[in-house]
């Protein structure tokens, strides 16, 4: 059969955000995949350069609707490192609590989305109901359900009332039971098994070669978790194990995420039971000295890195955000080869893509009616030219 090109996107019912795949298929089987992810460039990195450290945090919180806490924590811990600021232990513990709750709500949301992609709407409804409990806890701690606005340079903005802790712990018990239930369901439900097992396979070597991060890498047997490998905000004091398995397929990624739900519950329980006393916030200086920081963070989707350059002012000179989705995208193109067309939604969903976090510049040539993405060399040349001109070199 000749190869046919199936265009998917930028608008498609399987996609919640704009992205364009050109699927080259031989009948029902995928031969090659071309990705175009540049539909949602928002200029946040540039906007961050014009806001001081207080006003930039709410902006970064809005890079992603789900890992909002990840971006702010990653940024403020970078700035704190540049300032040489020590954050009170209670503040760090609260950051961990919110971060792990965020991981839980992200993974529960993902589980529902993956179930929805294979038409299993009951699991979708169940996980999203349980996610409500997580968001209720988040609301109790921070006052907000999605963008928690709890971080700022120096610590957290709200203290946790001691009277709230027993209620939170009680709901964690319920969530733990539900997590076990999902694991059971995943192991025994036949349609989920045949739609997840062996689909979107990525070997350990491929996962390393394409630089995958987070649950995608861990499901291919790579023991890589920033919380363990490069601990930040007192993760070294938290009891948890890095969840990995060797399946390498969508099933493996699901098992990793459910395993991480369990570990998150352990971490939150430990942090709440051993919450240190004292202040939650240190007063930071207005400006940060000249420094270059690479701040790394284990977001729900994988390693998130912020490159921050400060220059003796109250704002960043340069902020470069590398989201986990960008690191994982190329692995999708590989793991879809040889799969069926019907598996596209679930394999794409398996890396938990967040497209608006990921978009990069596209050049649109209106005259030629052609779009192209800058190559690495062009982008590098452009960057060098831009900063030369800016610094007057």
């Amino acid at each position: 059969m000749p190869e046919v090109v199936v265009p998917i996107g930028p608008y498609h019912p399987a996609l919640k955000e704009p992205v364009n795949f050109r699927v080259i298929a031989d009948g029902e089987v995928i031969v090659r995949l071309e990705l175009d992810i540049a539909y949602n460039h928002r200029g946040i990195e540039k906007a961050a350069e014009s806001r001081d450290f207080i006003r930039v945090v709410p902006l970064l919180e809005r890079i992603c609707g789900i890992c909002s806490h990840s971006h702010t924590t990653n940024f403020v811990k970078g700035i704190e490192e540049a300032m040489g600021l020590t954050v009170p232990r209670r503040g760090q513990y609260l950051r961990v609590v919110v971060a792990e709750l965020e991981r839980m709500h992200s993974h529960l949301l993902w589980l529902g989305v993956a179930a929805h992609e294979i038409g299993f709407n009951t699991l979708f409804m169940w996980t999203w109901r349980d996610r409500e409990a997580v968001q209720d806890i988040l609301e109790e701690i921070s006052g907000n359900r999605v963008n928690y606005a709890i971080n700022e340079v120096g610590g957290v903005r709200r203290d946790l009332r001691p009277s709230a802790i027993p209620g939170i712990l009680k709901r964690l018990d319920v969530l733990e039971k539900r997590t076990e239930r999902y694991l059971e369901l995943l192991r025994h439900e036949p349609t989920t098994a045949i739609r997840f097992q062996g689909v979107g396979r990525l070997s350990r070597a491929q996962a390393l070669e394409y630089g995958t991060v987070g649950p995608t890498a861990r499901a291919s047997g790579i023991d890589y978790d920033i919380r363990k490998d490069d601990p930040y905000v007192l993760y070294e004091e938290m009891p948890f194990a890095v969840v990995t398995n060797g399946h390498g397929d969508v099933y493996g990624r699901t098992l990793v995420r459910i395993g991480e739900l369990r570990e998150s519950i352990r971490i939150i329980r430990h942090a709440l039971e051993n919450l240190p006393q004292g202040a939650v916030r240190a007063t930071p200086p207005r400006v940060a000295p000249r420094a270059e920081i690479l701040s790394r963070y284990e977001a729900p989707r994988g390693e998130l890195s912020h490159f921050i350059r400060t220059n003796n002012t109250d704002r960043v000179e340069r902020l470069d955000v590398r989201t986990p989705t960008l690191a994982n995208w190329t692995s999708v193109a590989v793991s879809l080869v040889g799969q069926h067309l019907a598996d596209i939604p679930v394999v794409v969903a398996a890396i938990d893509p967040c497209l608006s976090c990921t978009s990069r510049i596209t050049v649109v040539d209106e005259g030629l009616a052609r779009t192209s993405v800058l190559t690495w060399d062009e982008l590098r040349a452009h960057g060098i030219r831009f900063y030369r001109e800016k610094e007057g070199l």
Partner: protein
Amino acid sequence: MTEVWLLVLYAMVFPGVLFLVIYALFLQYVDRKIAARTQNRVGPPLVQPFADVVKLLSKEDITPEGVDRRGMRAIPLLAFAAVATAFLYVPVIGTSPFAFEGDLVVVLYLLTLPTILLFVLGWVTRNIFAAVGGTRTVTQLFIYEVPFFLALLGPAIAAGSWSISEIMAWQGANLILAILQPIGFVVALIGLQAKLERTPFDIPEAETELVAGPWTELTGRKLAVMRLTMDMALVAGSGLIAALFLGGPATPWVLEPAWLGGLVGFGVFVLKTLGILLILALVRAGMGRVRIDQLNDFGWKYLATAAILQILIVLLMVGEVWA
């Protein structure tokens, strides 16, 4: 019931088209309510399916550019007519006055028509999702139709008749066929689920892949009629299985006067169709969608084998036990 006006009343009002439409909407309500309660949702109020139909009827009726307007409009109506006609032969309050030797074949044929029409709809609407969905519809038809027909053949062989009423009467004299032919009963239920394109067999209209499959370009009253047709097919299909495997609306003893017998028979019909719907709804809520190649494996390897096995058992039993 040989008078013409009584027959017209039967065909048009009760238990014909009017009753069929109302009961189809009621079953849709029950189906949605069961799904909602399993999924920890509240679910729709009783009149919601009716309100949906009214709303769709009042919506703009769009025909895509370059599509044969009359042809596209005819498809939902043809499907509606086919299912409504099929239902005339399904026993609701005792045996149907239209019953004749061989009506089982007619009902099976008429119930296949909506699926074929969905395939045609997918082709004529010139939409890529509809075309792919249409192809999947017909691929799926080839997978489930053979086991489904074989499963319904079992009762016919056992009773030695192609008439639904005869099969019902045979069950009254012996035992209901769901007990005698359990494999066939299960295969028939799976076949009905696939025929109605309900999860895990909603491959042709897989929302996350194909928007709505062949339904993609349907709007307004065309969509209303087509949806109603699928609900009516649910009534006709579950009524048929109730008649063939569960003894239909027949009561084990003769009730006097006749209207009381009819009333009790109708109650039995409602209970049995609701029971079948409960199974179908729980299967729909408890599973995800399989892929078309996986369905192909499942259908031909297991479902068809099970159906043939059941037929062999029936043939042996007919030859040995009742000869």
